[in-house]
């Protein structure tokens, strides 16, 4: 088994952090092999940014995403740029607060930025998306991702991020935000 995941958006949206958390959960807490690479422009914020995770149950030789099995798009630009570089049956997840799917394209979505704002800070929209991914794809164990959040983030942000993760997870289960 092997899967390729691309998380793409603008610099400042936490695409790299989301990829790191996902890779860490797979690699350290689910006993799988995982590698993350990233791509970003010279700007600190605003430029195109993406993280790429390959996960497998055996050694990963080539570390880059070639044709994603999963695309998480956090900006319209990222969606347009990467929507055709995916497998035919790829899972495409959008932050519908910021991205409109092209008609006829099969996608899943939730208003991650709005949900994050309701929780107090739009900065956790990336982790809302991770919760949504976790609820939409059975490779990820929620406990593993929660552990990655707890062991990676600064202590005072852990609670907010765990809430964001739970909201995304609940949305996937109910297709509406938990209250």
């Amino acid at each position, binding site marked *: 088994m092997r899967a390729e995941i691309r998380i793409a958006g603008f610099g400042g949206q936490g695409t790299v952090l989301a990829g*790191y958390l996902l*890779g*860490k959960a797979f*690699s*350290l807490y689910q006993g799988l*092999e*995982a*590698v*993350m*690479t*990233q791509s970003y422009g*010279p700007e600190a914020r605003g430029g195109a940014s993406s993280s790429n995770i390959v996960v497998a149950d055996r050694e990963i*030789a*080539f*570390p*880059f995403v070639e044709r994603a099995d999963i695309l998480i798009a956090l900006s319209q630009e990222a969606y347009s740029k990467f929507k055709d570089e995916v497998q035919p049956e790829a899972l495409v997840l959008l932050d519908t607060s910021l991205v409109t799917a092209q008609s006829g394209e099969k996608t899943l979505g939730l208003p991650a930025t709005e949900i994050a704002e309701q929780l107090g800070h739009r900065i956790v929209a990336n982790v809302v998306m991770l919760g949504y991914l976790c609820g939409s794809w059975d490779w990820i164990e929620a406990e593993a991702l929660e552990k990655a959040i707890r062991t990676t983030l600064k202590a005072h942000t852990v609670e907010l991020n765990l809430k964001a993760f739970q909201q995304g997870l609940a949305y996937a289960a109910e297709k509406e935000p938990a209250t």
Partner: protein
Amino acid sequence: MSETGILTGSHFMNGDHACAEGAIAAGCRLFGGYPITPSTEVAERLARRLPQVGGVFIQMEDEMASIAAVLGASAAGSRAMTATSGPGFSLMMENLGLAIMMELPCLIVNIQRGSPSTGLPTLPGQSDIMQARWGSHGDYRLAAYSPWSPQEIFDLTIHGFNVADRYRIPVLLMADEVVGHMVERVVIPEAAEIPFWDRKRANGKAGETFHPFEPGEDLVPPFAHAGEGYRVHFTGLTHDTRGYPDMSAEMHQQLVRRLVDKVERNSAKLEMSDDYEVEDANILVLSYGSTARSARRAVREARELGIKAGALRLISIWPFPEQAFNALADQMDAFIVAEVNLGQMITEVERRVRTSKPVSGVHHAGGAMLPPGPILEEIKRVAGHA
């Protein structure tokens, strides 16, 4: 964190950070550097980590000063390192020769990017391979290693310090941007399990009769650290066993011969490599660093097509893994060298294949990791499968 500052445990970490943690684990206590992409994260992490373990981080005014600071710390008895990329590596070349001449062990990390000149700061290359061997003026030998994963950067950082200390030579860690920036699992062992080869230290009587560059049977002089009470004199000039300048052809021959011989005689111990699917192989793919990951997949896919390909990964690029290559060379009908430059290591393979067997290259000037596709195509072409 243990008392030694070693982060024992499993981490999801990039190669640059793994290098910094390898340095902490190896007991490195001085970093002198001038941050440059894509090696910056090594400096960044050590700026935070070294003070936690009583070490010193100095950001110098440039790369020439950086390596000079490292050599000073080494002479005073500390394990010391710097990290850079192509442009900085070029600036370090003169003082690399000084490290050779003064026999000051140190680790120089080069996270290679697209070159020449400023080239591609954020993108990978493997084009400093011959510079690592011949970049400083004069005859010399050293050891250079090329890791293919963050875990191996950690391991080879430690090994690099050990080799440097044992032979009193500078050791080069020639990684590339892909390996420096990719994030993977890195397992850091307990402090007691980390190999440590100490310097051979001077233990004679200090005074007029003590000669700090009097070599032992292994051609390595026992190290008298500056400040221990011994009279020590370090110079880049040709010097006698006291360390004093001696401008004669005889002394020069004697000194330079010894500096080369102390490495060449131990070449077999410095060589490192691993192989994949070579048992019945008749086509050998040679590569190193991140390119070896693509070579491995290309060989796996060639096997699925029924082609008897195998891979030899050069972990030590200098010295070239002579023993491993010689053990495999006779059974091969063809050799393929894959590297992210326009043809450097291939010349080392060509001069070792003293038959009419073909040696071909898969090359790219840099800016991206060499993917498995072109390597597989070359394997197919050589095998007559195209």
